[in-house]
Structure formats: structure tokens, C-alpha cells
């Protein structure tokens, strides 16, 4: 009996230690990134977040000591442009995605015939699994020309009196803030829609019946009774989608136009997001013999991680019990 008890503990111990690998790896990731970025944090200080000039400095001359650190002459690392690009593109994506996701969820839950509902809801779920780089390819080949030739001139014709919506103030290539926001919107709409759809399906029948008994039309039942019931879940889904949009890399990199050191003047202006910038700049940052550029990229990764961590934590507190992994 005693021997058996000991064996049981060994089995549990093994499982526990396997499970602990997950939190440990998360902690290792944060610690290593932080340690690697430490010098950059010291060198850049708070200016890192507040200035828009990202310059590697003169890599052909000997490094000099600036603010106590060895860096190339004229090196300056400011990521405000990328923070703005990240926030603008994600907020634009939310602006597009929210109404579409709400409409889609209502359509799937209330309007779609029972027989085709599984197929239609699977279609929406499949949008979420298309690899980011495939979205990017579609963005380059279909979306950017569409914006350049039709959507852009259309928006300019209607809203052109506002400089922010006038394509003539930009290169007009179609690559830029609008393209990035649209692709991101497409990627996060299914996240919001499926979260909301699941919640709508769980609204108690009594509530609907009471509303119908009071003479509400079916659409009024949805908008006035069901939507208020699931609003918390909706907010959680939105924040979850925001978290995904903030960290998205490939698709954004491929359609954003890759701006450096300026803030977007119009919705058509090329931008860079933090995630896309880390990926696109590592090659050139490696040219820096002092490594300060690479370390500053690590600092961006750290900032991005902290932002997404905060956003996801908020989402999780709102949708208690919900997970990224859908219940399959």
C-alpha cells in the first residue's frame, strides 16, 4: 500500500513538471528579452517611446560613447511612428470588424436556416485559420490594387475635402494604413463573430419568448433583448481581437508599405507596425557593430509583448472562462 502511494506521487510529479514547462518557458522568454534589451532600455530611456526617428547612425565610423553607451555616431532609436502605426491600423481594423462581426454573428445565429448553419459558421471560422502570409499575398495581389484603383478614388471623391481621406496626398499605391486595417479587420472579424455567436446561442429561450409575447419583431428581440444580454462577451471578444491585431506580423508587413520615420498623414499613407518593423529591420540592425540596434529591436519586442499581455489579460478578465481555443 505504501509503495503504491509513492508511485502515484511519482506519476503526478512527472505530469506536474511537464505542465510547469509552459509557465517556465513564458518566464524565460520575458527574462531573456529583458536582459538582452537592458542596455537599450538604459540608452534609449523614455525617448524611445516619444520620438519618431529611428536611425542606425553612421556604421562606417568608429562608435562613440553617447550617454554612457558605445553606439554609432548619430544613432537614435525612437519608435513613436511604429506605435502610432500599430494603434492606428488596429483601431481601424476594429472599426471595420466590429459592425461586420456583430452582423455576421446575428445572421448566423438568428437568420441562417438550421440546415446550412454549420456550413456557414464553419466558413466564418475558416477565415480565422487562413495563414497570415496567405492573407498578405491576397492583400498584395487583390486588395492593394482594389484600393489603388477603386476604393481610394471613391473615398477621395466623397471625403476628399478632409485631407486625411484624400488619396492625392499619398503615393496612391494602395499599400498603407487602409490596406493594413482592412486585412487586419478580415483576420479579427471571425474572432469577434464566433465569440458573439456562441454567446447568442446561449441566451435563454425564456427571454426571447417573453419579448415575442410583448409584440417585438424578431429583429427587435435580437437588438433589444439578446444583444444587451451578451454585451460583456462582445466586449471581451473585441479586446481579444485587438490583441491579435496588435501583434499581427506577416500580413501587415506585406500590405502596409513599410514606412520609416514619419507619421501617417492620410488613410492611404504607408505605415509600419512594431511587429512588422522587428521583422523587416533585423537584417539591417545586424550591421551595427555595437549591437545597440539589435538590442533596441528587442526592446520593441518587449514593449509589444507588454501591450498585448495587458490587452489579453483585460479580455480574459471580461470573458471569464473563455479561451483562445474554441470548444471543438
Amino acid at each position, binding site marked *: 500500500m505504501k509503495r503504491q502511494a509513492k508511485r502515484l506521487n511519482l506519476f503526478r510529479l512527472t*505530469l506536474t513538471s511537464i505542465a510547469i514547462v509552459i509557465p517556465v518557458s513564458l518566464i524565460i522568454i520575458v527574462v531573456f528579452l529583458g536582459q538582452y534589451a537592458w542596455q537599450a532600455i538604459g540608452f534609449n530611456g523614455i525617448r524611445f517611446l516619444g520620438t519618431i526617428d529611428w536611425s542606425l547612425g553612421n556604421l562606417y565610423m568608429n562608435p562613440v560613447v553617447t550617454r554612457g553607451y558605445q553606439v554609432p555616431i548619430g544613432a537614435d532609436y525612437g519608435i513613436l511612428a511604429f506605435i502610432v502605426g500599430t494603434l492606428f491600423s488596429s483601431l481601424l481594423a476594429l472599426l471595420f470588424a466590429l459592425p461586420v462581426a456583430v452582423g455576421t454573428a*446575428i445572421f448566423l445565429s438568428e437568420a441562417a436556416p438550421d440546415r446550412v448553419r454549420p456550413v456557414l459558421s464553419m466558413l466564418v471560422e475558416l477565415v480565422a485559420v487562413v495563414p497570415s502570409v496567405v492573407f498578405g499575398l491576397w492583400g498584395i495581389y487583390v486588395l492593394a490594387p482594389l484600393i489603388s484603383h477603386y476604393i481610394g478614388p471613391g473615398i477621395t471623391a466623397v471625403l476628399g475635402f478632409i485631407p486625411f481621406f484624400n488619396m492625392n496626398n499619398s503615393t496612391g499605391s494602395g499599400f498603407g494604413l487602409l490596406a493594413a486595417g482592412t486585412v487586419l479587420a478580415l483576420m479579427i472579424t471571425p474572432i469577434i463573430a464566433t465569440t458573439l455567436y456562441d454567446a447568442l446561442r446561449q441566451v435563454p429561450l425564456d427571454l426571447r419568448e417573453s419579448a415575442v409575447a410583448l409584440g417585438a419583431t424578431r429583429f427587435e428581440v435580437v437588438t433589444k433583448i439578446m444583444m444587451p444580454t451578451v454585451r460583456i462577451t462582445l466586449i471581451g471578444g473585441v479586446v481579444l481581437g485587438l490583441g491579435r491585431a496588435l501583434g499581427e506580423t506577416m500580413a501587415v508587413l*506585406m500590405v502596409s508599405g513599410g514606412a520609416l520615420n514619419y507619421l501617417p498623414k492620410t488613410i492611404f499613407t504607408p505605415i509600419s507596425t512594431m511587429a512588422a518593423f522587428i521583422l523587416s529591420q*533585423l537584417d539591417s540592425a545586424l550591421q551595427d557593430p555595437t549591437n545597440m540596434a539589435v538590442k533596441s529591436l528587442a526592446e520593441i519586442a518587449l514593449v509589444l509583448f507588454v501591450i498585448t499581455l495587458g490587452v489579453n489579460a483585460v479580455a480574459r478578465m471580461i470573458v471569464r472562462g473563455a479561451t483562445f481555443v474554441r470548444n471543438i
Partner: protein
Amino acid sequence: MSATFDVKARRSALETKRIVSSAVGWGLCGLAFLLVAVPLLDLVLTITIKGASAFSISLFTTSSNGVTGGLLAAIVGTAVLSLGSLVFAVPIGVGAGMYLSEYGQNRLGSVIRFLSDTLTGMPSIVLGYFSYITMVIGLGWQFSALAGAITLAIMVVPYLARITELSLQRVPVQMREAAYALGAQERTVAFKVVLAAGAPGVITGVLLGLAISVGETAPLIYTAGWSNYLWNGKLTNQPIGYLTYVIWTFINQPYKSAHALAFAAALLVMLVVLAINIGVRVVLRPRT
């Protein structure tokens, strides 16, 4: 629940307004659905047409040479990286899922659950950068299959753990009790009863993890690197090609052959990812 109500009396203005606005509302919802479905269908169609026209025997038998040639090396590389990631991810992910389901109803369990969800939400490029610092540079592995596979595994493990947990939790408690009553040990119950009963869910998780690995790009660029040549079996100090890299870089080359390869690679990746996702939904999900 019928949508219309038979009202014999003449409609008042207010009623008409309500009925009209409801109709408009339903129309907008349908439109919203189309706004999601049409881009997906367009994406699938565009890539299928452009990709299939680039298909040929040599696409699968030769490796790329600059921006021409085939995709053999990339196909093999994607298989090596994604299957390799499962080698690390399956034992850890399934083991962690078993822990969370069987013994995780405590403080440690909820901490692991929270941090695992946090890891899922971590941008993949941040993870890639971490692997670059630690494995590629720190351990001196250079761009390599091992660094790429481990990076993918770190992405897949939290998914797998949570899916495993969910599917094992659905195994009825009575089955566990019956097994214990027969004198089975904890280990036997966990593997032969709970894991066996929850196997379809776990397999779903593994397949979805595979789909994630096949479609990933960002974390591989600075861990696996890129190579035109067929993988030679070396785990470290040897870059390896993969399909998603072809999509990303070849579409930006000003050559027709490069674009054709990019679309062919995109079609292959999309087929695998969609086939896995549709497959597990159709086969394994009992839709109620």
C-alpha cells in the same frame, strides 16, 4: 419561431416603421456575413487558380534555384519543421493538458492556465526574436531546423494543452471511478481510460497544431533561415527552406516565375491548413 405575425388590423405608422427597420436590419446582417464570406471565397479562388496554373511535375521533384525551379526543398523543409515541432509539442502539450484536466483544479492549475493563455496571445514575432537571441545566437545553432522546430513547438504547446484539457474533462467521472474500483493505478487510469476516451479531441488538437505550424512564417524567418537546397539531415548550423518563406519573398520579386512559385506555395499551404481544419470539424465534431 415564426418571423411574421398576422395582424388583421391596418398597420399604424409606427408598426410600419418597425417592420421596415427590422427588414433593413436583417439585410444589413446578411450583408455583413457576405463581407466575411466573399473575401474568403475570393482569396481561396484567386490562390487556387493562380497556384494550380503553376503546378507541374517538376514543382514537386526539383528545388528552387534563385527564383525559378520547383518547391521540393521547401515542401520537405515545411514537413521537417512542422512534424519536428510536434515531436516537442505533443508530449509537453498533452502532458500539461492531462495535468490541467486531472489535477489542475487548484491554484497552480489556474496559474498555468492563465500563463498558457498569455503565451498563446504572444505575438509570434516576439517569440521568433526570443529564439533568435537564445538559440540562433546564444547557443550558436545558427539558422537551423532545430531552432525553427522548437520555436513552433513553443507556439503549439499552449494550444495543445488547452484542447487536451477540454477534451479530457468531457470524459465522464464514472469511467474514472469504475477503473479505480477495478483496482487500476492512477497512471493506468490516466493513460488507458481517460486519454483513450479523450483521444479524438487530443488528435484534433495535434492536427490543429500541425496546421498552425505549416502556416507560420514570422517566427521562422529568424530561426530557420532559408535555403534553396534539400535538407541534408543536419539539425543545427544548417538553414532550411519552407513554403511560407517562398510566399513572402518571391511575391516581391519582379519575375513571373517567382510569382508563380509564390502562388503555388500559397496553394499548398492553404490546402493543408484548410484540409486539416475542415477535416477535424466535419469528422470529429458532433454538431448538436
